[in-house]
């Protein structure tokens, strides 16, 4: 954590120096006020010198005003620095992740990356803010207070030797018990969430099996546990404030008692006694603040650690130093002995896969879950790099081409049809920014999306929510297809992109695509046999290896895996129809 904070606060060095100076001034001025107050008593009140009282009073007034101004300036710089720190960390992370290949992204997991870039940064930023505004003032005030106390009276200062350790022990004891309890409360909350989430997800099953009562009992148990633990934390904290207040108050009693003796023997003036009381309070208060704020540190440190992991990961795929260019038409793909294995994994996901796609050809990939279909797509689009073997486009190895150049060749429809916030038009134009309205409509038409878009009140300008959550799964898939089609790409890749479509729409869409992609290479990953049975070439994957390549007819005849897949969906006669 320290490294992260140091690295990202470096640009704010000047501000930091200013803040420390301001905070120091503030602390010292705060200590000077009781000193002047002691003066009022010693030289004004005791001697009855009203003129002196007013004179010192004016001085105190001036210091108070200056103190206010200094404090506000300190807040200004602290807020600026802490927020700037947060902004910089967020930006560095976002830029780092944008340069990651899919492999690094999947290593962390997308939801985790999102949390790291948002919540975790927030945590650390908050700690920095609190540190700048409160935490750094604590040691300065404490040390200043001790010096002032010693200057006033060394004997009386010995009281600190008792009070501070007692307070540290009390707070330490409570906090050290509370921290694990807090963690435990979080676990219990997660527990109750888990039961509830299951209940909501399975509500039909629970009601169908008439198990509402037993689910209530489960919830009850989780509820009891949460209440138990929360109660323990709350009761622990019930002790905190009264205990601290008692320490504060008894300290002041002790100062008056011991101080009374010193006043009597003439070792200390009565005004200094009250000033001393003020110093002790300041010291105790800053110790208290520091200890309590320290409890923020472990959480922020965990966040910082998670941030560092991202920042220290270097992208697995970068552009070649000596880039080659693709031939202008480039629409053939060769997969040569391609294998892929996650680092450290036991078995390869893909093993020695070879086939070729020529322009104008429709190639399908089928296989069960986990057979490596999506991995194959990710290798061809170079979201992953092959572990061995080669993928080439028009004879040029994909690793030899600048990534952006390579990607401009593809019209990709990923398995998750994801849409972005914006309008239907902006989502389609994601594929080709300069597409005319006509081209957009044409793409929608091919994707069989034109009819529902026309029916929408706002047509092309209809709003799309984040992720496309306001349109149905089928509509989402068709818009994602239109987004790819509008690119007029030499190579199209559809990763299980027709699954949410009914058979009729599926068939019509494929027919329209055929027309549109006459000169392009098309790769379709699918589960449904009817979607792919008319492909020019079908690649059958089974657990990462090629089980067969051929047409529907030839595979039916000689590929057992393919026959199995087909017959799980169609009857014998239908398969041969």
């Amino acid at each position: 954590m320290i490294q992260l904070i140091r690295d990202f606060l470096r640009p704010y060095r000047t501000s930091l120096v200013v803040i420390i100076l301001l905070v120091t001034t503030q602390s010292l001025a705060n200590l000077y006020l009781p000193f002047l107050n002691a003066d009022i008593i010693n030289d004004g009140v005791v001697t009855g010198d009203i003129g002196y009282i007013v004179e010192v009073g004016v001085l105190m007034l001036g210091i108070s005003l200056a103190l206010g101004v200094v404090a506000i300036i300190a807040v200004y710089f602290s807020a600026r620095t802490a927020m700037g720190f947060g902004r910089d960390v967020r930006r560095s992370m976002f830029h780092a992740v944008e340069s990651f290949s899919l492999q690094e992204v999947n290593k962390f997991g997308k939801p985790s990356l999102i949390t790291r870039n948002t919540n975790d940064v927030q945590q650390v930023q908050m700690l920095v803010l609190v540190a700048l505004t409160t935490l750094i003032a604590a040691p300065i005030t404490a040390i200043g207070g001790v010096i002032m106390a010693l200057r006033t009276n060394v004997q009386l200062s010995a009281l600190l030797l008792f009070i501070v350790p007692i307070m540290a022990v009390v707070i330490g004891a409570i906090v050290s018990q509370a921290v694990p309890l807090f963690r435990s409360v979080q676990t219990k909350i997660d527990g109750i969430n888990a039961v509830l989430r299951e209940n909501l997800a399975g509500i039909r099953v629970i009601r169908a099996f008439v198990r509402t009562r037993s689910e209530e009992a489960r919830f009850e148990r989780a509820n009891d546990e949460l209440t138990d633990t929360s109660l323990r934390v709350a009761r622990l904290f019930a002790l905190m404030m009264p205990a601290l207040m008692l320490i504060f108050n008894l300290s002041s009693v002790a100062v008056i008692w011991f101080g009374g003796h010193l006043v009597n023997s003439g070792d200390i003036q009565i005004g200094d006694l009250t000033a001393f009381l003020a110093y002790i309070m300041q010291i105790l208060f800053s110790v208290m603040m520091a200890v309590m704020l320290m409890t923020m540190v472990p959480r922020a440190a965990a966040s910082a650690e998670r941030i560092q992991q991202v920042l220290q990961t270097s992208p697995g795929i970068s552009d070649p130093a000596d880039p080659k260019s693709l031939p202008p038409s480039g629409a053939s793909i060769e997969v040569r002995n391609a294998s892929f294995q996650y680092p450290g994994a036991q078995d390869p996901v893909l093993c020695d896969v070879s086939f070729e796609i020529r322009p104008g050809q429709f190639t399908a990939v089928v296989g069960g879950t986990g057979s490596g279909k999506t991995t194959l797509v990710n290798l061809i689009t170079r979201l992953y790099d092959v572990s061995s073997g080669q993928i080439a486009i028009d004879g040029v190895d994909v690793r030899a081409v600048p990534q952006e150049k390579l990607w401009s060749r593809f019209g990709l429809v990923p398995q998750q049809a994801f849409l972005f916030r914006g309008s239907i038009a902006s989502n389609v134009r994601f594929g080709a920014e300069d597409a005319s309205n006509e081209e957009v409509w044409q793409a929608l038409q091919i994707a069989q999306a034109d009819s529902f878009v026309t029916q929408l009140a706002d047509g092309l300008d209809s709003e799309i929510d984040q992720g496309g959550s306001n349109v149905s799964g089928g509509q989402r898939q068709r818009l994602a297809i239109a987004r790819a089609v509008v690119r007029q790409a030499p190579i199209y890749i559809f990763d299980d992109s027709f699954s949410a479509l009914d058979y009729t729409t599926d068939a019509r869409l494929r027919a329209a695509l055929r027309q549109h992609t006459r000169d392009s290479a098309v790769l379709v990953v699918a589960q449904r046999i009817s979607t792919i049975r008319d492909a020019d070439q079908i690649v059958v994957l089974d657990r990462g290896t090629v089980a067969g390549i051929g047409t529907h007819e030839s595979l039916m005849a000689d590929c057992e895996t393919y026959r199995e897949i087909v017959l799980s969906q169609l009857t014998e006669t239908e398969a041969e129809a």
Partner: protein
Amino acid sequence: MSKNSTSQSMTERPSSPFARGPGSLGMTLPAEKARDFTGSLRRLLRMLHPERLLIGLVMFLALASVFFSVLGPFLLGTATNVVFAGVVGQDLPEGTTQQQAVDELRAQGETTQADMLANMTVTDGVDFNALARITALVAVVYLISAVFSWGQNYIMAGVTQRTMHRLRERVDHKLGRLPLKYFDSKSRGDVLSRVTNDIDNISTTMQQALTQAITSLLTVFGVLLMMLWISPLLALISLLTVPLSFLTTVLIAKRSQGQFVGQWHWTGEVNGIVEEMYTGHELVKVYGHRQRAMADFDEANGKMYESSFRAQFISGIIQPAMMLISNLNYVAIAVVGGVRVATGAISLGEVQAFIQYSRQFTMPITQLASITNLLQSGVASAERVFELLDAAEEDPDPVRPLHIGRPTGDVELENVNFRYSPDVPLIEDLNLSVQPGETVAIVGPTGAGKTTVVNLLMRFYEIDSGRILIDGVDTHEMTRDDLRRCFGMVLQDTWLFKGTIEENIAYGAEDPTAAQVDEAAVAACADHFISTLPDGYDAVLDDDGANLSAGERQLITIARAFLSDPAILILDEATSSVDTRTEVLIQEGMARLRQGRTSFIIAHRLSTIRDADTIVVMDAGQIIEQGGHEELMAARGFYYDLYQSQFRSSYDQTADNSQAVDSSY
């Protein structure tokens, strides 16, 4: 005079850093406004009714604690007076009495000092007996106050947690009585957040706001009384700071409110971009939008920085501003009080006590302001929970329900009408008669409303008119539980809970034996894969069974249905993402399960559809055709087209089937 400018007074309660009160760390959400603040607050307080005795005790403890803590500074002031009297006495020349000294001072024209001296009882040196008595008394007073305060917090913790426990329980039971309609129309996250986040927020509010509010109010009153008693003039000076601090807080808070809204808007914007761009990572890269994504992010991030800086700065001013006001007050009292002591109007100890009081006076007032904020957000949360508690429940079961002993599986739908929303007709006059053991296939494009039939059969939704009969008994005459016991369901969206495989299968029946579970697993063709798992039947599934494949999960739910041994089945065939071998097992399992039972199947497989006794064809939420396979093929209607489209290859797809309705939306 003790106490300086920043040291906090002796009884105030600095809010703990664990507190999530508004402004505690400046990053709290803007207080959501409650719609009916007083009404909801009253309802929230009514929830405390079972704890009223304890709350009475809390009130008493708070009163006692505040009483003693307010007494402390005054007593400590008298201790200072004792010391002061001793010092002054020591300073008097040997042998002079106090009266003599006063007279002498007056003669010298030192009238102010003479007045001061005249008003105090000087002692020769500090009277340590008196000092010991007083300091011991103060220590005891503070100790008692602390004990009471602890007791108050301790009891209040129990009150709050028990109340929250009851609230959660009520909400959970309520969820059990809500109709499916409620869950289908609300997002899962929303319901979840009401039960957890909102209740959590209410609990924080109760724990902090209630205890603090009581103590703060009492302290304000107690302190005000003491101040007026000591010196009405000084009290007036201190009272001046009240409107001043109040005004300052309000002015700053009003300004920062707008900035906080901006901060949260841009935070949401930045988080949105991060979420979107990371989720669509492949797309952003392959479609070459990386630069644009970074530019968009940088812009929003910059705006977020600007607005959050302003919000933090403006709200951060409150504290120094308050400190300034409090310092001004301090100086005023020090000066005026000093003059008053010097003239003998009040004693030094009283001024010292007074300064402590004036500190204690402003703190609770600022605290009350922040409690109001906290209360706002707590009450808004409470409103969201109440909304759930007030939602319409299912109609109660009949008082004298009819029972079916052992159902045979005869299902009759008579003139059934149903609409999800009153103005969109859905199922109109549906008639369907199913003999025991028959199979009904429900087919149609995605989103055609096939699950509606399931919803009605299971009474997840209530039909608007008509009757559904099982073995001749109207399902409305039965309890929902009895009705549902007639059915077994295997849905595509399999539901498994965290627990062992054995427990998940056993869910199908009340306390089945291990042998029965095994038997069901064997019948469902699930036995084989289960025995290949490291722990077999004792393998623990994580949340939602994510460590099994989709097909394996479905096999477990088939086993579960076997175990429940229902007369009527509802099956939802898998459409995708199941590997071939498991698919074969699932089909076999389902086929075996169907033997001798009436089955309703949401069918995707042509083989299933063709073998069904009745096919119900649905489109756009309505049943448009009904009959046997041959019959429907002969009619050459929608079913015919649907069936054909599954065979046609895209080569010969031409304009000719453009008459088929595009019905997938």
